C-alpha cells in the first residue's frame, strides 16, 4: 500500500541524480512518485485550490521546495503540521539536512543532492519512517548516539535519584538508546552512578565508531 508520496517537478534532475536507482525506487510499492507531467500539473492545481486532504493517506510526504510557490508551500506545511507525519522538503540551494519537530509532525529540509542518494533508497527500504536515515544513511544511529550523550550528560548534572518512568518522560530518548543502554535499569530508581556507567558505555561505542 502506498504511504509515501514523492513530488518532483524537475523530472530530468530526478532521473539525472538517481540514474538507474530510479527504477529501483519506483519498484517500491509503498512509494507514489509524481515526477512532472500531467499528474504533477493536476496536483499543483489541487494545491492552488487548497485541497490538502490528498495527503491524508500518506504518512511521509517528500516534495521539491520550489515545486510550489511560497504561499502554497506554507499552506501545505500549515496543514501537515497538525498530523503525525514526516515531511521532507528538498532543494538545491541549501546546506545539509535539518530536522525539526512541531507537534507530532517531523519536518526535514535537505539538500537535493543529499536527498537523491543511496540514503533515499535506504530510507524507503526501511519503511520511510526514520528521517535520520534519509539524512545520514547507515550512520543515522551515530547521530542519535551523539545527541543522546549530550542529553544524558546535561541531565545527569545535579541529578537526584528518580524512577525510570519520570526520566523516560523528561529525557525522551530514542527507543534504540533505551533498548541498548537502559533496558536493565527500567524497573528501578536510577542513580547518578547508573548514568555514569551508561555514559561510559555510550562513549566507548562512540569512539569505536567515529
Amino acid at each position, binding site marked *: 500500500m502506498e504511504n509515501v508520496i514523492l513530488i518532483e517537478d524537475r523530472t530530468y534532475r530526478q532521473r539525472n*541524480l538517481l540514474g538507474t536507482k530510479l527504477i529501483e525506487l519506483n519498484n517500491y510499492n509503498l512509494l507514489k512518485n509524481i515526477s512532472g507531467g500531467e499528474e504533477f500539473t493536476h496536483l499543483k492545481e489541487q494545491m492552488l485550490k487548497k485541497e490538502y486532504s490528498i495527503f491524508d493517506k500518506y504518512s511521509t510526504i517528500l516534495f521539491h521546495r520550489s515545486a510550489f510557490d511560497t504561499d502554497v508551500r506554507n499552506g501545505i506545511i500549515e496543514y501537515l503540521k497538525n498530523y503525525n507525519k514526516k515531511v521532507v522538503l528538498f532543494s538545491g540551494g541549501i546546506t*545539509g539536512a535539518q530536522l525539526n519537530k512541531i507537534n507530532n509532525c517531523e519536518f526535514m*529540509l535537505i539538500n537535493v543532492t543529499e536527498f537523491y542518494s543511496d540514503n533515499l533508497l535506504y530510507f524507503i527500504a526501511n519503511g520511510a519512517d526514520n528521517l535520520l536515515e534519509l539524512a545520514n544513511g547507515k550512520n543515522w544511529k551515530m547521530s542519535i548516539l551523539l545527541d543522546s550523550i549530550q542529553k544524558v550528560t546535561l541531565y545527569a548534572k545535579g541529578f537526584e535519584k528518580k524512577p525510570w518512568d519520570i526520566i523516560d518522560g523528561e529525557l525522551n530518548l530514542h527507543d534504540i538508546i533505551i533498548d541498548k543502554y537502559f533496558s536493565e535499569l527500567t524497573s528501578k530508581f536510577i542513580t547518578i552512578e547508573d548514568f555514569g556507567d551508561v555514559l561510559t558505555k555510550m562513549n566507548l561505542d562512540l569512539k569505536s565508531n567515529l
Partner: protein
Amino acid sequence: MSDIIFSFGDFEIEIPQNSTFEKGKLSENFGDDLDQRINTYLNRNDSELINSFILPVSLTGNFFDFSGLIFAHHIRLSRNLKCCDVKVAFYGTLELTELLRLSPLARILITENVFYIDIAKHSFEEIIELIASKSKKINFQSILNQIQISPPSNYDGNHHSVDNEFALIQWSIQNGSYESLPDDFKKEFDSLLYFKYLRAKNPLSHLEIKTFEKIQLETSIKILLIDDESRKGWKDFYEFFFQKLSNKIDFQDIDIDFKNSNSLDRNELISTIISEIKKIDPDIILLDLRLLDIDIDNEKEPNQLTGIKILEKIKEVNNGIQVIVTTASNKVWNFKYANQKGALDYIIKNGFESPEVTLKKIRATIEYASIRAIYLKPIYNKMIKSLNSWNEYKLPKRKNLNDPMHDKLWHINLKLQVNDFIKNAFDTINNDSISERFTISTLLLFRVIEMMNEFYIMECGDYRDKTIQYFFDQDNTMVPKISKLKGQYIIDSKVQKGVQLSTKEKTMAIYHKTNKINPTLFDGIHKLTDYRNNVTIHPKKRFKEESLEYMYESDFNRFSNSLNIYFSAILDYVESFK
C-alpha cells in the same frame, strides 16, 4: 544586555534564575532554509543588546547538520549587526579534535572570542564565568582566513548557480539596483551563509554606487534577455542598468518556465522562443547557453546546448541580430563554438572579478552591439527581400554565348552566384574575427556588378586598337554611356567606337535599360567602384599607405556608413531585375 542560550533538538536546558540569560529559539517556519531562520533571528530589533551566545554544536534533531556551528558563522559574517563580534560559547560532549575531524565548520571553534566547553568535564557555571569575562577585540580578517565554508552542493556539482547569483549580488550592489531585485531572492541572497562568506572574502573596493557613461544611440534599440534565471533578478538588474545607460533602450525578457521544460519538449520550447523573437523583433539578444536541466550534463557537446540551438535559429531569423552569450559557465569551448555560430561576444556571470570593470565591459559590449545591429539588421532584411526577388526573376537566356569573354558555366549559375557573393559579403562583415572584413566584403559586392555586366553586356573589338564597342546581349542594341555632369545624369546613346566604358558605367546602363535613373543607387555604385579601384586594386601611389590602413580598418564605426551605402546600392540593383 542579554546572553542567549540555545538548546538542541527537543531537549530543554534549564537556565539560571534571575540571570541575564534568555532562551534562544528559531522560527518554526520550516519551509525556510536554516540560513534564513538564523538570519531572521539575528536581525531582531534588539540585536545590539546581545552580549553573548551559548550554543550546542547542532540545534536540530540531526547532530550532523552542525547547525550550531553554522549559527556561529552567521554571527561573525553578519557584519551589519552590532552583535557580530560577541562571545560565542559552545557546549558539547565530543573532544574538540573529534569535531574538527567531523566538519570543517568546527574551525570556528578555534577562532577569537569562541569557546568550546566539554560539558562532561566542566560545569555550566564555568560557561557563565567565561562569558562574563571581558571580551577581546577580534581580528575579522584573521577569522576569515581560518574558517572555511563550502557552497551548497547544487545538483550540477559545478556551482554555476552560485556564480550566477553571486554575480547578480555584486553587480546589482555596484550599480545600485540591488533594492529593485525580487524580495524572495533578496531574502535568499541576504541570508545564505555562503554568500555572506563570499561577500566578506570579496569586498567591493568602492561601496558607493557607480554610474556608467551613457550610450549615445542614433535610434531606439530593443534588447531581449533569454535566461532561465531572468525572473530571479536578472531582468530587474538589466532593466535598471540599461535605463541608466540610455533612454533609447527598450528592454524585455522572455517569460518561460525553463526549469519545468524537459528534453521531450525542447523543440517546442525553442519554436516558442523563436516565435517570440519574431514578434518582439529585437536588435540585441542576451542569451544564456544552459537553459534546461539537460544542458547541465558536463559531457554535453556545445552543439547540444539549448542556447546554441536557439542561437542557430536566431541567425536564421535575422543574421544581423547581435547575440551576446551570458553564462555562468567558464567553458572556453562553449564560447568558441557560440562565436563560430555567430555570437558577437559573451558576458561571464562572475562576481569574483571587479564588478566595476565587468559592468564597464558590458556597457561597451552593448554599445558596440547596438551600432552593429542598427546597420546590420536592416541590411539583412533588405538582403533577404532583394534575393527573394532576384530568385524569382527569370534569367534571360544569353544570345551571344560564343563570345569568348564569357564562361558558359557561370552564366548558368549566375543566380546562385549572386546569392553566394552577397550572402558571403554579409557574413564577412558580420564576422569580427576577420580584420580586413570591410575590404573583402566590398570586393565581394563589386564582383556582383562585374558578373552582371559580363552577363548582360557583350563586348566587341579591342580597347587597345580603339575598336571596342558594347552591346546589350538581349537585343544587340548599343550600351549608352551615362555620366554625371553638374549633378545631372547625361545619357549618351550613340557612343563612338573605341570609347571604353567603366564597370560603374556599364552597371548604370543595365539599370537604365530596365528602369530609369536612380541617383542614390548610382551614387552608391560609384562609391563602391571608387573604393575598389582607388584603395584596394589600383591604389594611387600617394594613397598606398593610407589604402593599407583602410583595407585593415576594423573600427565598425568608421566603415559602417560606407557599408550601408554599398549594400543598399547592390541590393536595390539586384532587386530591380523583375
